[in-house]
C-alpha cells in the first residue's frame, strides 16, 4: 500500500516511502547530512539551517505534464538557485540531492560559523565534550580561526538549575529548541520554554518545582551541546573514559533498555562504578527514551552504604556475622526441615534465573512459591497477552487501547508515552478510572466509576473500542486489593478472549505490574497469596528473596512468630531481614547477569556493569547453594546455564537461549556514537532486542483469591500508585531524593472540608482504627467522595480498601 519514491542523493539511488524527509532518506543509505534542530522523533522545524543541500527536481512539461527529457533521454533536472534545508524537504520522484558540492559545503560552513559566534567554546570543561554534536560537526565544518571577536561574546549564567535534576548552561545553548519541542511535542509537558527573542532567547522554566516533568533527563540526551546536563552526571566523568554495559531498567514492568556507563575511580579503590544510566534503543519497547525514575533510580541503591556484605545468623537472639558456608548450612537445614510447610516468597525484582531456582527449590521441598505483588492476572496475561510481533508503535487508526484501574503515566511511564503516541496516530484510547489521569488528555473516551465498580464499567465500553481492529487492554490495581485485582483480571480475560483477533500481535492483556519481573514470576509458576499473613502463620519456615513484607506492612511481627526459621536474602537489612534467623547478602542486578520478562512478555537480558561488593552473591547462586545442600542440583554459577535449565523446564521459555535474546536488527532512527548529531546520545542496541514469549494455549488455571470483604462503610482508604514513591530503591536515589513526594493522602474537597482539612495541611490518618500516621492532605475534585487515596510504598500500608479516619494535626499548617 505504501507509495515509494526513488531519488538520487550524492549519486546514490535510494527508494523510500513517500513523505520521507531528505535527511532521513540520506541517513538510510549512510549519507550524513548534518543537523542540529532536526531530530528524527520530532516534527521538522528548519531552524538551525545546518542541513543545507542542493535540491533538483525533474522539469515537467506544462502541456503534457510529463518530465522533459534531454537528448540522451534522461529527465532534465532543474536546480533552484537557493540551498534548501534537507530536514524540511520531502522526497519526490526523480529528485536529485547534492550534499557535497562546494556551494553546499560553504553554506554549511557558514551556518556553523554563525553558531559558533555565540558559543563559549569551553569544551575542555564541558560534560558533553567527546559526545557533542556541535564539537563533532565543528571538526567537519568549522572555521580554523574565529572571525568573531571573542570580546563580543555574551557572558551568561553557566550553572542554572532548572529544578533539582537538570542544569542549564546558558552560554552553550544554540537555541535548537530540541528540548522545548521534546517536552511539548513528545511528552506533553511544556514546562520549559524560550524567553526573550533573537540572540537573547534563553531556556526558562516557570513550573513549581522547576522543570516539573518525569521526562526531563531525555532532554540532556538530545541536547546538541552541553547546555543541559543532569545533576547526576555533570562534572562526573569525560565520555571517552566511560565503559558501557547493557541493562534493563528495574523500576517498572516496561523493561526499558538501558546502558550503564562505568569507569574506574580512585574513591572506589580503583573499582568500576556506574556514572550514569542512559537509554538504549529498542523501538519496540522504549524507543530511545527513559523516564527520570529509571535514569536516576536504577543504580544508586546498589552503591548504598547500607548494603549487606556478609551473611548474618541469629545467635542467642542476636544477628551476628557468619561465614557463607555456615549460613548456608543453617538455612538449608532449617528450610529442609520444613518440607511440606515452606513458604518461598519472591519479589518481582528477582531475575528469571533467580525465580526459576527458587521455584525449583520450593517444589523440591513441597513448598508454596509466592509472589509479593498487588496486581493479579499474570497467568491470564500468559494466555491472553500480547503475541510475539507486538509493538505498541504499530497501533494506529482503527485500533484501540483500554486502560483501566491504572494511572499509566505514573505506573509505567513509557507505556503511557507509547499509548499517547498511538492516540496521536489515530488509535482510540479509552481510560476507565474513577479520576482523571494524564492519559485522559490523549483519550477519546473516559469511563468514570466508583472504586470497586471496575467490572460493571466494562459494560460501558464505547463502540470505538468494541469495534476496533487491534485492541490492547492495560490493567492496574488502582483502588484494589489482590482479590479485586484478580476479579478484574478475570473479567478482562473473558472480554479479551471474545476478541476476534486475540492471539494475534497487538491484541490482548497487559498487566501493569509493580515490578520489572512480576510477569516472569507468574510465567514461572509463582502466585500471590490472597492472605499473606495467613500464609506466614501456616508456614513452618519461610525463605524470602527481594521481599520485605514486614516493612511494607503486609504482615505483622506476630504473623512471623510461628515460623521455625526465617531466611531472608536481600541487598539491605530490611525490617523483615532484621527479624530473620539467617540473612544472606544478595547482589544487585547491576553486578551480575540475568534476564527479565517484561509486562509485554518480552524476555530481555541485563549484563554485569560493575563488580559486586565483596561478600555478596547472586540470588540464583545462593538458592542453588542451599539446594545443593538439600540434594537438588541447580545452576549456581553461570546465568546462561541457569536460563537454559529454565528454558528446558518452563514451556513459555522453550527454545530460548541467551544467544537468541541477544539478537539485534537494524532499527530506525539510527542512534549511537557515530550518529550523535542525529538521534542524540542514546545508545545503539547491539546487545539484544529480546524475545516475546509465545502465548500459552490450553485451559488457563486462573489464580483465585477467596472473596475478601473489600468494601467498607464510611471513609475508605484505597491504594493508588505514584511514580516517585519512597520505596527501597527510590529512597536511595541521591539525585531524585529532593523530588520524592511527601507522604500524601488525596481527598475530595467536600470530604476534606467536612474534616476541616485543606490542601497542604498535615493530618493523622488511622487505618482500621489503628494508630495514626502523619500525612499531608492533597485535594482532587475529580475523585469520588468517600475515598482517601493513599499512594503505595510511601509508608502508609494500604493494600486494599480499608476503613480510615483522618484528623487535622493542630498548628501544623504547611508553608
Amino acid at each position, binding site marked *: 500500500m505504501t507509495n515509494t519514491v526513488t531519488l538520487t542523493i550524492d549519486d546514490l539511488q535510494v527508494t523510500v516511502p513517500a513523505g520521507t524527509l531528505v535527511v532521513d532518506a540520506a541517513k538510510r543509505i549512510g549519507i550524513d547530512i548534518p543537523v542540529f534542530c532536526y531530530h528524527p522523533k520530532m516534527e521538522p*522545524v*528548519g*531552524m*538551525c539551517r545546518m542541513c*543545507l543541500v542542493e535540491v533538483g527536481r525533474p522539469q515537467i512539461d506544462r502541456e503534457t505534464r510529463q518530465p522533459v527529457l534531454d537528448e540522451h533521454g534522461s529527465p532534465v533536472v532543474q536546480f533552484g538557485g*537557493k540551498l534548501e534545508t534537507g530536514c*524540511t524537504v520531502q522526497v519526490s520522484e526523480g529528485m536529485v540531492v547534492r550534499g557535497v558540492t562546494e556551494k553546499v559545503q560553504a553554506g554549511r560552513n*557558514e551556518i556553523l560559523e*554563525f553558531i559558533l559566534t555565540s558559543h563559549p567554546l569551553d569544551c575542555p570543561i564541558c560534560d558533553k565534550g567527546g559526545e557533542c554534536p556541535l564539537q563533532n560537526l565543528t571538526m567537519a565544518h568549522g572555521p580554523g580561526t574565529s572571525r568573531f571577536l571573542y570580546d563580543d561574546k555574551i557572558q551568561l549564567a553557566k550553572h542554572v538549575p532548572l529544578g533539582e535534576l537538570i542544569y542549564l548552561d546558558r552560554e552553550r545553548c544554540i537555541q535548537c529548541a530540541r528540548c522545548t519541542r521534546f517536552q511539548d511535542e513528545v511528552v506533553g509537558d511544556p514546562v520549559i520554554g524560550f524567553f526573550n*527573542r533573537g540572540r537573547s532567547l534563553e531556556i526558562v522554566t516557570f513550573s513549581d518545582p522547576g522543570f516539573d516533568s518525569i521526562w526531563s533527563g531525555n532532554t540532556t540526551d538530545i541536547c546538541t551541546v552541553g547546555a543541559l546536563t543532569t545533576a547526576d552526571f555533570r562534572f562526573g566523568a569525560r565520555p571517552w573514559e566511560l565503559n558501557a554495559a547493557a541493562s534493563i531498567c528495574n523500576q517498572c514492568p516496561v523493561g526499558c533498555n538501558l546502558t550503564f556507563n562505568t569507569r574506574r575511580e580512585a574513591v572506589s579503590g580503583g573499582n568500576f562504578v556506574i556514572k550514569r544510566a542512559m537509554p538504549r534503543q529498542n523501538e519496540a519497547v522504549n524507543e530511545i527514551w527513559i523516564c527520570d525514575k529509571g535514569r536516576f533510580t536504577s543504580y544508586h541503591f546498589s552503591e548504598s552504604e547500607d548494603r549487606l556484605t556478609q551473611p548474618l545468623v541469629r545467635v542467642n537472639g542476636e544477628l551476628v556475622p557468619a561465614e557463607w558456608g555456615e549460613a548456608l548450612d543453617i538455612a538449608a537445614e532449617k528450610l529442609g526441615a520444613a518440607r511440606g510447610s515452606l513458604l518461598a516468597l519472591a519479589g518481582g525484582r528477582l531475575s528469571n534465573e533467580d525465580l526459576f531456582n527458587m521455584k525449583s527449590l520450593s517444589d523440591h521441598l513441597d513448598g508454596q512459591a509466592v509472589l509479593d505483588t498487588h496486581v493479579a492476572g499474570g497467568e491470564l496475561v500468559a494466555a491472553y497477552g500480547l503475541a510475539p510481533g507486538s509493538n505498541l508503535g504499530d497501533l494506529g487508526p482503527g485500533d484501540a487501547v483500554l486502560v483501566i484501574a491504572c494511572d499509566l503515566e505514573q505506573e509505567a511511564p513509557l507505556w503511557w508515552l507509547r499509548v499517547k503516541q498511538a492516540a496521536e496516530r489515530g488509535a482510540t484510547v479509552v481510560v476507565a478510572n474513577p479520576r482523571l489521569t494524564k492519559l485522559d488528555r490523549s483519550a477519546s473516551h473516559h469511563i468514570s466509576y466508583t472504586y470497586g465498580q471496575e467490572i460493571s464499567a466494562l459494560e460501558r465500553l464505547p463502540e470505538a473500542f468494541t469495534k476496533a481492529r487491534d485492541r490492547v487492554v492495560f490493567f492496574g490495581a488502582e483502588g484494589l486489593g489482590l482479590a479485586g485485582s484478580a476479579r478484574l483480571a478475570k473479567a478482562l480475560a473473558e472480554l479479551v478472549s471474545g476478541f476476534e483477533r486475540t492471539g494475534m500481535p497487538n491484541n490482548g492483556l497487559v498487566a501493569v505490574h509493580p515490578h520489572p519481573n512480576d510477569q516472569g514470576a507468574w510465567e514461572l509458576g509463582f502466585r500471590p497469596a490472597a492472605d499473606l499473613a495467613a500464609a506466614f502463620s501456616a508456614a513452618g519456615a519461610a525463605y524470602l528473596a527481594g521481599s520485605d513484607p514486614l516493612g511494607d506492612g503486609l504482615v505483622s511481627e506476630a504473623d512471623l512468630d510461628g515460623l521455625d526459621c526465617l531466611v531472608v536474602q536481600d541487598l539491605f537489612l530490611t525490617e523483615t531481614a532484621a527479624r530473620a534467623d539467617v540473612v544472606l547478602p544478595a547482589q544487585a542486578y547491576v553486578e551480575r547477569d540475568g534476564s527479565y520478562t517484561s509486562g509485554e512478555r518480552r524476555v530481555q537480558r541485563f549484563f554485569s556493569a560493575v563488580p559486586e561488593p565483596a561478600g555478596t552473591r547472586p540470588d540464583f547462586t545462593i538458592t542453588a547453594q542451599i539446594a545443593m545442600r538439600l540434594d537438588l542440583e541447580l545452576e549456581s554459577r553461570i546465568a546462561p546455564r541457569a536460563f537454559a535449565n529454565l528454558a528446558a523446564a518452563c514451556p513459555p521459555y522453550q527454545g530460548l537461549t541467551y544467544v537468541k535474546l541477544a539478537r539485534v536488527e537494524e532499527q530506525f532512527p539510527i542512534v549511537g556514537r557515530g550518529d550523535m548529531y542525529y538521534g542524540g546520545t542514546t545508545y545503539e542496541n547491539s546487545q539484544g532486542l529480546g524475545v516475546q514469549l509465545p502465548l500459552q494455549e490450553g485451559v488457563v488455571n486462573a489464580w483465585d483469591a477467596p472473596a475478601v470483604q473489600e468494601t467498607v462503610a464510611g471513609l475508605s482508604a484505597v491504594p493508588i500508585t505514584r511514580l516517585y514513591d519512597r520505596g527501597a530503591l527510590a529512597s536511595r536515589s541521591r539525585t531524585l531524593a529532593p523530588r520524592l513526594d511527601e507522604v500524601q493522602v488525596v481527598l475530595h474537597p467536600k470530604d476534606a472540608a467536612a474534616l476541616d482539612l485543606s490542601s497542604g495541611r498535615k493530618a493523622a490518618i488511622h487505618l482500621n482504627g489503628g494508630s495514626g500516621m502523619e500525612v499531608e492532605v492533597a485535594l482532587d475534585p475529580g475523585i469520588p467522595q468517600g475515598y482517601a487515596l493513599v499512594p503505595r510504598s510511601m509508608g502508609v500500608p494500604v493494600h486494599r480498601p480499608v476503613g480510615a479516619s483522618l484528623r487535622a494535626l493542630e498548628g501544623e499548617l504547611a508553608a
Partner: protein
Amino acid sequence: MPDYILLRHRQIPDLDRLEVYMQHGGFEAFKKAVTTMKPEEVVEEVFQSGLRGRGGAGFPTGLKWRFIDKNNTPRYVVANADESEPGTFKDREIMEGNPYQFFEGVMICAYAVGADTAYNYMRGEFWELAHVLDDKLAALEEAGLLGDDLFGTGFSLRIHNHLGAGAYICGEETALLESLEGKLGQPRLRPPFPPSFGLYGKPTIVNNVETLANVPPIIEKGWQWYKSIGTDRSPGPKVFSLSGNVEKPGNYELPLGSTFRELIFEHGGGIPGGKNIKGIMPAGASSAIIVADEEALDTPMDYESVQNVGSLLGSASIIVIDDSVSMDWLVKKTLHFFKHESCGKCTPCREGTYWMTHLIDRIEAGMAGPDQVDLLNTVAQNIEGKCLCALGEFAIQAVMTGIQRFPEDWAQPEPVAAD
C-alpha cells in the same frame, strides 16, 4: 485632484462614522457580493482586477483567495494590521480615517472564501485605535451588517480585533498566525501555506489592511475599472508612506507607476534645508538602497520597475535620505532594528544580525579597519539565501547596497602597521 479611492476620509469629513460611510455608498459592495454574487464570482472579480498584496510581497490577492482549501472548515480571514516596517504608516491612517472601507473589504473576503470569523491582528501599539475599532465593530453588529444570517442569506460573520504586543516579525503572515494562536511570533515552515493550513491549522486568508480596503471599490465598480488605474502588471491605487529627509512627509495616494520624483518633489515638497537627495529606501528599512540619481528619480513606482533599479517596492514606504547622511550611520540604524526584531528561530538571522551590529558599531565609531567593512559585507552575504523567513534577507539589504553603492561612505582608518 482625482478622487481618493482609499484615503477617502481626506475628502469626506467624518467618514469614520457608520452613517456617513453608508451615505457615501458604504457596504453596497458587500451587499452586492453577498446577495447577488456567488463566492467564486467574488474571487474571480478580485483575481481579474490584478490587485496585488499591499503588505510588501505584491502577491496577487485573487490568486491567494483561489488557493483557499474548500474541503476544510471552519475557514478564517485575518487582516494583517501589524504595520511595523520602519517607514510605513499607511494602514494606521486607513483604519483611523476610513475604517469601514477596510472592514467591508474583510467582510467581502470572508464571504468569498466562506469564513464566518475574521480577526484583525493589530500591532499592540495601536491600542487606542483598537478601542475605537471595537466600537466600529459594535456599530456594525448593531446595524445588522455583522452577525448571523446577513441579508437573510444564511451567511454569518463576526470580526474581532486582536492586539499584538510589540514584535515586527508578526507582520510575517505565519508568525502572525502563531501569535494569534497565543504562541511566540515565530514564522512557520512553508509550505503548507495559510490558505490550506492557517489559523488553528484551518484554511485562512491573511491580507494586509490596505489590500482589503481595495476590495470594496473593485466589487462596486468592477475589475475593468480597477485595471485602468496604475500599470498593467501593477494596477490600482497605492498609499505611499513618505518619510525621512523630505519637506512634507506623510501618506500619498497615487496610482502605482507614479515616479519617485513626483512623490518626493511634487507631493513631498522636496528636500529641506537646501540639501540634495542622496538615496531612496522604497520599502522601508528592508530596502536595498537606491542611489537617487536622475534615472532613479524617474523610475515608476510599481513592482517591476523598482526591481529593475535594484530594489523592491515592498509596502511602498519611501524613506528619503539626503546628502548629510552617511551610510554607515544609516546601516547602524537598520541593523539595530533587525537585531532587535529577529525572532531567534533560525541561525543566520539570529546570529548574523547580532554579529553585524557589533561590526557596524565599531565601523561607525571609526574604530575598525577596512577589513571590517569587508567582513560586514561577507557576513551579510553568508546570511543571504539561508534564512527561514524574509526578515534575515531584509536585514542585509541596506548593508550590502549601502557598502556597494555608496563606497565613499565607508572610508576607514588604515590599520597602524605594527613595528
